[in-house]
C-alpha cells in the first residue's frame, strides 16, 4: 500500500499539470489540440537542451524551457491555428491540422536528439521514509511544486483579471467580444499558460524517468483519460481525474502487470464514458442506464 501511495503521488505529479493545461486550452479555444502531447515532449527537450548541453542548473533550465515552450505554442497558434480559426472552420478541422503540426514538432525533435531516451543531469538523492511515503528529495520537491502550481492556477482562474477573462471567453466568446474583450489575446495567454504547464509536466516525467522523442502520443492519451474521468471542461476535474488515473495506473503496475498501466487508464475512461459521460465532476447526474446504452439507443 505504501508503495502505491508513493508511486501514485509521483504519477499524479506528472499528469496533473499537463491535464490542467490541456483542460484550459480546450475550454477556452474550443477545439482539441493533438499537438499538445508533442508540446510536452518539446518542453522536456528544450529544458534538456539548457540542462545537459549548456550545463545550466536545473531550476533555471526549467524556467527557460517553459518560456521557450510557451513561445513555441504561441508561434504554432499564430502561424497554424489562428488563420484557420479566422476562416471559421470547425473544431474537427483544427484537430486534423494539429495532427500535422504535431507530426512536424515530433520529427523535428527526432532530428535534433534521435530516438534514444534521455535523462536530466540532476543531483542524485537517497530515498527517505516520510510517514508512509518513501521518496527522494527531488520527488518530494516535484510533488510540492505540482500542488503549488495547481493551486496557483485555480486561484488565478478565480480571482485575477486574466482568470475572469478566460472564464468569460470560454463561457460565451460572442458575448465577451461584444463586451470588449480581445479574444485573440485571451487565446494567446491561454496558450502561454497551457504550454508552460506542459513543459513542467514533461520535465517532471524526465526527472522521474526518461524522455524520448516519440513519447507525446502516449502521454496525450493518458492525459485525455484524466480529462474524461474528471470532466472535460472542469479544471478541478482535470486534476481530480489525474489523481484517480494515476492511482489506477500504479495499482495496475503493482498488482497486475506494469505494461498494462496505460490500458488500465483507458479502461477506467471507457467505464466513466458509459456511466457518466460528462465525467465525475462534470455536469449531469450518474446515469446507470447507460450501461445498457446500446440497446437503449437502438430503440430510440
Amino acid at each position, binding site marked *: 500500500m505504501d508503495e502505491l501511495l508513493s508511486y501514485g503521488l509521483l504519477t499524479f505529479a506528472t499528469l496533473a499539470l499537463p491535464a490542467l493545461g490541456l483542460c484550459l486550452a480546450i475550454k477556452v479555444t474550443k477545439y482539441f489540440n*493533438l499537438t499538445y502531447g508533442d508540446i510536452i515532449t518539446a518542453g522536456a527537450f528544450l529544458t534538456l537542451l539548457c540542462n545537459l548541453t549548456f550545463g545550466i542548473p536545473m531550476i533555471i533550465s526549467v524556467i527557460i524551457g517553459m518560456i521557450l515552450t510557451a513561445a513555441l505554442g504561441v508561434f504554432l497558434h499564430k502561424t497554424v491555428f489562428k488563420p484557420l480559426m479566422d476562416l471559421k472552420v470547425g473544431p474537427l478541422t483544427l484537430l486534423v*491540422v494539429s495532427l500535422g*503540426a504535431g*507530426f512536424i514538432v515530433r*520529427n523535428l525533435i527526432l532530428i535534433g536528439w534521435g*530516438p534514444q531516451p534521455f535523462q536530466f543531469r540532476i543531483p542524485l538523492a537517497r530515498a527517505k521514509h516520510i510517514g508512509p511515503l518513501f521518496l527522494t528529495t527531488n520527488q518530494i520537491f516535484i510533488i510540492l511544486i505540482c500542488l503549488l502550481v495547481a493551486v496557483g492556477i485555480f486561484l488565478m482562474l478565480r480571482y485575477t483579471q486574466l482568470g475572469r477573462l478566460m472564464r468569460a471567453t470560454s463561457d460565451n466568446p460572442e458575448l465577451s467580444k461584444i463586451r470588449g474583450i480581445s479574444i485573440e489575446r485571451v487565446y494567446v495567454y491561454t496558450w502561454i499558460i497551457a504550454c508552460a504547464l506542459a513543459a513542467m509536466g514533461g520535465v517532471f516525467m524526465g526527472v522521474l524517468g526518461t524522455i524520448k522523442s516519440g513519447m507525446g502520443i502516449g502521454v496525450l492519451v493518458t492525459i485525455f483519460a484524466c480529462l474524461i474521468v474528471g470532466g472535460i471542461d472542469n479544471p478541478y476535474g482535470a486534476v481530480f481525474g489525474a489523481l484517480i488515473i494515476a492511482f489506477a495506473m500504479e495499482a495496475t503496475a503493482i498488482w497486475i502487470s506494469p505494461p498494462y498501466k496505460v490500458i488500465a487508464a483507458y479502461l477506467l475512461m471507457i467505464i466513466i464514458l458509459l456511466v457518466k459521460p460528462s465525467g465525475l465532476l462534470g455536469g449531469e447526474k450518474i446515469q446507470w442506464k447507460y450501461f445498457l446504452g446500446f440497446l437503449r439507443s437502438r430503440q430510440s
Partner: protein
Amino acid sequence: MEIFSWILTIATIVAIYSIMGLALNIHFGYTNLPNFGIAGFFAVGAYASAILTAPHRFRQMEIFAGFAGGMPGRFEYPFIIGLIAAIVFAAIVAFLIGVPLLRLREDYLAVASIGVAEAIHYVALNELWLTTGSAGIRLIPMPTGNRYLYFLIVLFVLAVVFWITQRFYRTPVGRVWRGVREDEVITASLGKSIFSARMWAWVVGCAMMGAAGSLWAHYAMAIQPGEFVPTTTFLVWIFVIVGGLRNNWGILLGAVLIIGFFEQGTRFLPAFGAPYIMPAIRHITVGLLLILIIRFRPEGAIPERAARIEAHI
C-alpha cells in the same frame, strides 16, 4: 529488372494503404467519424491472419530461440481463412470499442481512438502467448508464393473494397451516413437511428482496415508490434486529406502521390546522417503539406462530386 521489382513493391504497398484510405473515407468522409486508430485495426487484422496461417516450422524456430508454446503456428490455415478471420476479428473489435466510443463527440472520438490503437499496440507487445511480443511473427506464408500473383490478389481486394465504397455512396444506408455527417438532428427527425448508422459505418470501415492488415502480413511475411504505431495512422490521414476527402478516386490519387512517390519513392535518394533523419524529413514535409492543403484547398486534389438530385417519385 531491379527497378521493376521496386515498382511492384511500391505498388503493393500503395494498394494496401489505399484500402485503409477508402475505409477512412467511409468513416470520416461519409459519416464524419474521425478514426485515429487505424493502426490498431490494421494490427488486429495482421495478427489475426498471421496467427492463423503461420506454419508449424515457425514454432520450431521459436522453441530454439527460447520461446515455447503460444498460439502462432498452431493452426496453419490457408490464406483465405486468414483474410476472412482478419475481417471478422477487426469487425468484432470495432463493435466492442464502438459501443462506448461512438457516443462521444467527434473530436473526443478522435483522441479516444488514438488511445484504442495504443492499447492494441500494448496488447500485441505484451501478450506473449498470443503474439510472441516484440519478437513478432515470422515465416507467414505468401499465398501463391509469387509477388506478381500476390499483387494481383491485393489489386482484386482493392477493387472489391473500392466497389463497396462507391456503392455505399448511393445506397440507402450510405445516404443515412451522409445525413449523419451533414446534420444529425435532421437525420434523427426522419426516424433514422444515429447510433446505429455510426456503428454500421464504423464496423464496415474497420473490417476493411482488418483486410488491409491481413494483406500486409502476408506481403511482408513477418510482423512485429513496432510497425503498428500512430505514424501509420497519420500517413493514411494525410494522404486521404491531400488526395480529396470524400472522393474515392481522389483517395487513390493521394495514395499514389504521398505513399507511392513521397514515402516509398524517395527511398532511392541518397541517405545522409543517422538512419532516422530521412524519414523524419519526409514526415515533416507531409505534415507541412497537410497544413497547407487544409489552409488553401480544404477539399483536396479531387473534391466530392456535387450531390445528384435523386427523385424517386
